[in-house]
């Protein structure tokens, strides 16, 4: 791959609803299994960072991918959730794992 030092432009902004891609590729993946396919809300943009899925194979990970903190309702992630129904889980997810919801 060609090393592009500039980051991929951010597709989402704070408050946007997003769905995590429901896919199960091999290799080193930072997107937890339990949130794949679920819908959440962009809580903030954390910045842009080299893609760890590429760094895991000693490649550059460039161009840098925007990283977001995504907020999920616990009751959305686990339908049988019995604690406070207003509980949320925040997960940092790279842009290439997110699509508009």
């Amino acid at each position, binding site marked *: 791959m060609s090393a592009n030092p500039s980051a991929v432009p951010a597709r989402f902004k704070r408050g946007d609803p997003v769905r995590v891609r429901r896919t199960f590729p091999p290799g080193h993946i930072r997107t937890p*299994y339990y949130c794949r396919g679920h819908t959440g809300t962009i809580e903030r943009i954390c910045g842009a960072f080299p893609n760890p899925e590429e760094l895991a194979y*000693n490649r550059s990970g460039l161009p840098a991918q925007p990283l977001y903190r995504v907020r999920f309702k616990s009751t959305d992630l686990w339908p049988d959730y019995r604690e406070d129904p207003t509980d949320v889980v925040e997960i940092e997810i790279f842009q290439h794992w997110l699509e508009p919801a």
Partner: protein
Amino acid sequence: MRRVHDMGGLHDGPVPREEHDWEPYAKRTQAMNTLLRSPSRGMVSLDEMRRNTEDLADSYGKLNYDERVVHSLAQVLLQRGVITIEELGGKMAEIEARQRQQGQST
């Protein structure tokens, strides 16, 4: 498919709180990990370590934390060509022979 290390959100038992002594090999493992992962050396990255540990798959749960670090450090150094399989195998045989000898003399 959920991979073995990706256990977030699963139910499990309580966390054991008691402290334990570090065996000498565990201390050496952590020292080696710190030195090789130092950004100034740029020899081993966290992401490569995690990939190799996760690729243990069925063996993941059979090894303890330090054993997994030893495994992954060796894998990354082999993958990057820092050491060869012959060098690693030769050194392991040498240490084994030395320990056998020490075991006999004591």
